[in-house]
């Protein structure tokens, strides 16, 4: 009579193995469906155990135009879950993959259908969907999500070639990072949460100058030309994905300093979609209201140019969203802790967790402004989402123990 609820419909044949243990044992991790068959004529109870990797992998998509593996965001995210993310041990040294105890981050460049030579021949940039194999991306993300390991190709950014594949085993959290995580509708369906990092043109320019000016081949002109040349494809193929994201981190120049064009002080907006399952947007003081907050004053002294927050409901591409915005930067620990203590629904497990996470990576870019703060908060939100999903899934087998 004991039948537990099957919560996902999978093709059982590919991911499951069937065994008939002589002793009935109940190993209730989420991956086992246990069927009891009571035979009517004898007292002997036959137990058939079907072990399925029913997939408790949570898939996160991150759209960013900043390459893969360097991503500060990724390191912050994996750090929230604990453990450092490292490249796979002993494999291809040019692999873009990062693995920690709980998280695996893959770079979507690995799904290029055309290598550098191929793209040159066809006249397509890496931003163009024609340079990417979305069928393979979909198949493999689906497989990982249902608990099946895959042999994923490696795109080598040094040689520009597609290298032999590496084995990716299903982790607890699977992050797909790159230019097109939300481009294909089938892949979009697989994402439990998605983030788009939206860098404005002025800030992008400033960051690329910082990144490239020291290089022998580069000049202000070449950096500018590169951004301009890529812009049409970027606007056509990458930018439209932001309407699908559950959270958008928008990075803009500050409004606190007139004519600041160095991109050092930033105005960062965390745009959070309302109504997303397991995701409760961060808010300031009073959820759903509109707030403008300057924390610097009698209790907190800030140095120039100070810090300014705002929060409120908005519409974004036809969706209801809540926007939390920070303009300025912190340069002291107590500023950060003060701000943390006034934010609500940040999904921390203890007071000061955001500050502690920020300090752990104090040498990463964005550690003193909204980019680091919001990336850290999104990391905590993802942890919260993961725990809620796991809790909801483990509801089913527990029912079986009762009968």
């Amino acid at each position: 009579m004991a039948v537990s609820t099957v919560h996902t419909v999978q093709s059982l044949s590919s991911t499951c193995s069937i065994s008939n243990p002589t002793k009935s044992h109940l190993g209730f991790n989420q991956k086992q469906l246990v069927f009891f068959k009571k035979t009517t004529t004898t007292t002997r109870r036959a137990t058939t155990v079907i072990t399925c990797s029913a997939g408790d992998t949570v898939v996160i998509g991150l759209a960013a135009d900043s390459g893969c593996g360097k991503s500060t965001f990724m390191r912050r995210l994996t750090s929230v879950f604990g453990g450092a993310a490292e490249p796979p041990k002993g494999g291809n040294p040019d692999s873009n993959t990062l693995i920690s105890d709980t998280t695996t981050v893959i770079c979507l460049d690995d799904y290029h259908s055309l290598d550098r030579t191929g793209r040159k021949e066809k006249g397509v940039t890496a931003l163009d969907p024609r340079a990417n194999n979305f069928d393979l991306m979909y198949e493999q993300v689906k497989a990982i999500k249902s608990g099946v390991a895959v042999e994923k190709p490696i795109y080598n950014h040094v040689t520009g070639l597609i290298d032999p594949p590496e084995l990716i085993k299903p982790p607890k959290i699977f992050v797909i990072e790159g230019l097109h995580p939300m481009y294909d509708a089938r892949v979009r369906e697989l994402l439990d949460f998605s983030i788009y990092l939206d860098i404005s043109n002025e800030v992008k320019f400033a960051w690329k100058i910082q990144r490239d000016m020291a290089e022998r081949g580069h000049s202000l002109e070449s950096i500018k030309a590169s951004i301009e040349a890529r812009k049409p494809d970027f606007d056509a193929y990458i930018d439209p994905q932001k309407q699908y994201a559950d959270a958008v981190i928008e990075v803009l120049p500050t409004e606190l300093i007139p004519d600041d064009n160095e991109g050092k002080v930033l105005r960062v907006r965390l745009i959070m979609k309302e109504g997303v399952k397991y995701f409760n947007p961060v808010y300031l003081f009073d959820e759903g209201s509109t707030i403008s907050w300057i924390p610097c004053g009698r209790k907190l002294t800030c140095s120039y140019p100070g810090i300014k927050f705002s929060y409120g409901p908005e519409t974004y591409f036809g969706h209801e969203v809540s926007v939390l915005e920070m303009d300025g930067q912190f340069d002291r620990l107590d500023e950060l802790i003060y701000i943390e203590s006034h934010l609500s629904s940040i999904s921390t497990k203890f007071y000061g967790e955001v500050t502690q996470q920020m300090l752990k990576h104090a040498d990463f870019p964005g550690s003193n402004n909204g980019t680091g703060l919001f990336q850290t908060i999104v990391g905590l939100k993802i942890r919260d989402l993961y725990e809620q999903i796991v809790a909801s899934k483990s509801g089913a087998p527990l029912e079986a123990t009762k009968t």
Partner: protein
Amino acid sequence: MASSFTTLNLNPYSSFGSASNGEINTKKKIEIKMNMISPPSKNGTRFKAMKFKGTRMREKQLTEMIEQKVVEANQVCGEDETSDECKVAWDEVEEVSQAKADLRLKLEKLQQDPLESFCQENPETDECRIYDD
């Protein structure tokens, strides 16, 4: 939620003083770290971490490719700025510039040669010869 915190002692150091993992630094170090926006000096920290021939080779290769591809892009775009060839050429420049930056970042932030784990398993390969400056 916010109100419950205002009654606590807001001395920022009292909650972290007992951190046993040593990750929380002294106040001065924190201030210095937080004020750092641009990456540290181009040469010193990076070359200290570079250990294997393979990494040195990659670094050199990427540097040369950046230079070469910028020249190419300027040439191709000089002929026709709106052509597909022009945007592909600058896309290549972006790709190798980012790859170089990634390598630089790994060396500076991790303070470790990215080939470290590969070379532990394959010490005999040419890439894993110890690089002597």
